[in-house]
């Protein structure tokens, strides 16, 4: 990360604080709820940005990874293990803080469930395993094939979630408990916790951003970009293309699953529509709109569009709006709206300095 990025990060932090102050001041705190959710969705987009923008691999399976993370958290923290309460290992796990006895919200009986932290870690491990299982064979495929393979994977996950009773079929799971992530800090959608959750979500989003930018500006990032520009050439240069692609895939899947886990605790539930192909396509749209390899652009567009969509400004045309944006952006501005804008600004400023002698095409 260079100095400019730190400056941008500070700017982002200032904007986040300013928005909170404005929202609180104007008594419109309910906006913060959608902004929190947008921040979590942006985690998925940022991860996908790494995979699509830097490594040039299209994945239509990120909705599925989001759902895997969310459902793992939801199932583990709500599924009652009381049957095994007498078992020895249940006692050990309870003492280790992995399992916890909790009152059932509906009938007051106590149930034995995983703690949110344990569920989150289990979700991460599970995601890594799934991502490697899916990624290893499918990343050897190129272009169309990769997109189709990941789309097939996400459809499988969607169908499994819809069909299996463990995941609540079409209703999904609700009643997911709040997640006390640190002492005094709880991921939950309750009204008094709105502001602290808003800051928490943005802190996580910014941490992901810093992480990814450092990754991109490292040896790994250069390798990924080499793969994007020419896989054969990268291979010839001694880059282990398979390993780096798999790594990018796993990292982005992890971010998606983490976002799913956080958002499930925040919304206290999750439904199968999170794994639908539409969701995956939406993430791809957001990455494309942001300019493919532009983390800042993707983050900005993701927050903006997710916010508008969650507030319901698009009404019944929600999906159509995303489809149309996708087509327009790709056919008119394949590099996203930010690059031409940046070029324009650069051109104007160089023109001013060089007295207009600069060739216009070169900017």
């Amino acid at each position, binding site marked *: 990360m260079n100095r400019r990025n730190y400056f941008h990060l500070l700017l982002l932090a200032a904007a986040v604080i300013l928005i909170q102050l404005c929202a609180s001041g104007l008594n419109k705190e309910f906006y913060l709820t959608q902004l929190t959710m947008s921040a979590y969705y942006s985690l998925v987009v940022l991860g996908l940005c790494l995979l699509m923008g830097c490594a040039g691999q299209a994945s239509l399976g990120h909705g599925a990874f989001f759902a895997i993370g969310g459902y793992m958290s939801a199932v583990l923290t709500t599924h009652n293990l009381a049957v095994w309460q007498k078992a020895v290992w249940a006692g050990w796990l309870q003492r280790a803080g992995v399992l916890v006895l909790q009152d059932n919200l509906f009938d007051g009986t106590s149930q034995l469930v995983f703690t949110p932290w344990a569920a989150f870690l289990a979700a991460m491990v599970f995601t890594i395993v799934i991502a490697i299982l899916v990624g290893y064979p499918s990343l050897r495929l190129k272009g169309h094939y990769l997109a189709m393979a990941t789309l097939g994977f996400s459809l499988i996950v969607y*169908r499994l979630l819809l069909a299996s009773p463990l995941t609540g079929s079409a209703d999904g799971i609700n009643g997911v408990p709040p997640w006390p992530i640190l002492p005094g800090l709880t991921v939950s959608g309750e009204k008094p916790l709105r502001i602290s959750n808003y800051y928490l979500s943005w802190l996580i989003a910014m941490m992901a951003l810093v992480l990814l930018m450092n990754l991109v500006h490292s040896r790994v990032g250069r390798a990924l970009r080499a793969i994007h520009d020419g896989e054969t050439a990268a291979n010839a240069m001694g880059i282990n293309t398979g390993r780096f692609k798999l790594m990018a895939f796993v990292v982005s899947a992890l971010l998606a699953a983490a976002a799913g886990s956080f958002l499930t605790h925040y919304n206290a539930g999750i439904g199968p529509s999170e794994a639908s192909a539409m969701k995956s396509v939406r993430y791809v749209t957001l990455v494309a709109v942001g300019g493919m390899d532009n983390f800042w652009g993707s983050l900005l567009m993701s927050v903006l569009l997710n916010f508008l969509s969650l507030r319901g400004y698009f009404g019944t045309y929600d*999906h159509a709006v995303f489809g149309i944006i996708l*087509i327009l952006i790709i056919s008119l501005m*394949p590099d996203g709206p930010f690059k031409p804008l940046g070029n324009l600004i650069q051109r104007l400023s160089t023109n001013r300095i060089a007295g207009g002698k600069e060739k216009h095409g070169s900017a």
Partner: protein
Amino acid sequence: MFSGITIGSIYAVVAIGFNLIYSATGILNFAQGEFVMLGGMVAVSMLSVVSLPLAVAGSVILVTLCGCLLELLFFRRLRRHSILHMIIITIGLSIVMQEAALHIWDEKVRSLPYFTGNEISTVQIFGAAISPQVFWVLGTVSAAIVILHLFYRYSLYGRAMRACSSNPEAAMLAGINIANMRTVAFGLSAGLGALAGCVISPSAMTQYDMGPGLAIKGFAAAILGGLGNPMAAVLGGLAVGICESFSIILVPAAYKDVSAFAILLLVLFVRPNGLFGKPSGGHVREC
């Protein structure tokens, strides 16, 4: 078995559609399933004005034009873009078409009337009771495939299209207008899809969101046969259809689609060049 062959033949048509566009342009059209949906929808709407055969014909023509239009509007201008962009734009088109269908028609499941007889009329063959619609599906699909084959083999246009797919530059030097051939390929593939959408509509119903599922299974069929090989795609389609209908014996019906997608993934991972295709080194996969 017969339901498997019937649905398999529809997958085969979708797979051929994939092949047509792929060999002419190198694009995999994710909106392929939408053509099938549109075909059924348009025919159902036209039925209120004209008779059944006219409605089917009209819908096929309309969707063909729609396919040509898509090519003219989007893909012709975007030749220079990367594969990633192409994939994304066909995905976008698929969504927009789906949403347009949702708003023009609605989320209700529709169907055309049975072409002959009705829901309960059957034909007895070897002790199995089969709906006459099955014969319509099989007949139409095989006729379409034969005509397509003859078209490719003997007509000037078909030969020109084959030339384009095997070597675009040489075809261009020989005076073939490649851009027009691409438009024709899109139109043909859309028309075929629409025809399939019409014949399958009485038994399998038409719904606005049927597209992606069909596209994926059609793609599985195309891959099973090997891309760029339309006739093998037919076998691939039948295989996928039969596997799907037999999977009901092994797993609950709710998991039916899962098995079809699992076949796709398996084939992609194990034999990306198709069961009948030759491995062409470094073409599909690297490493």
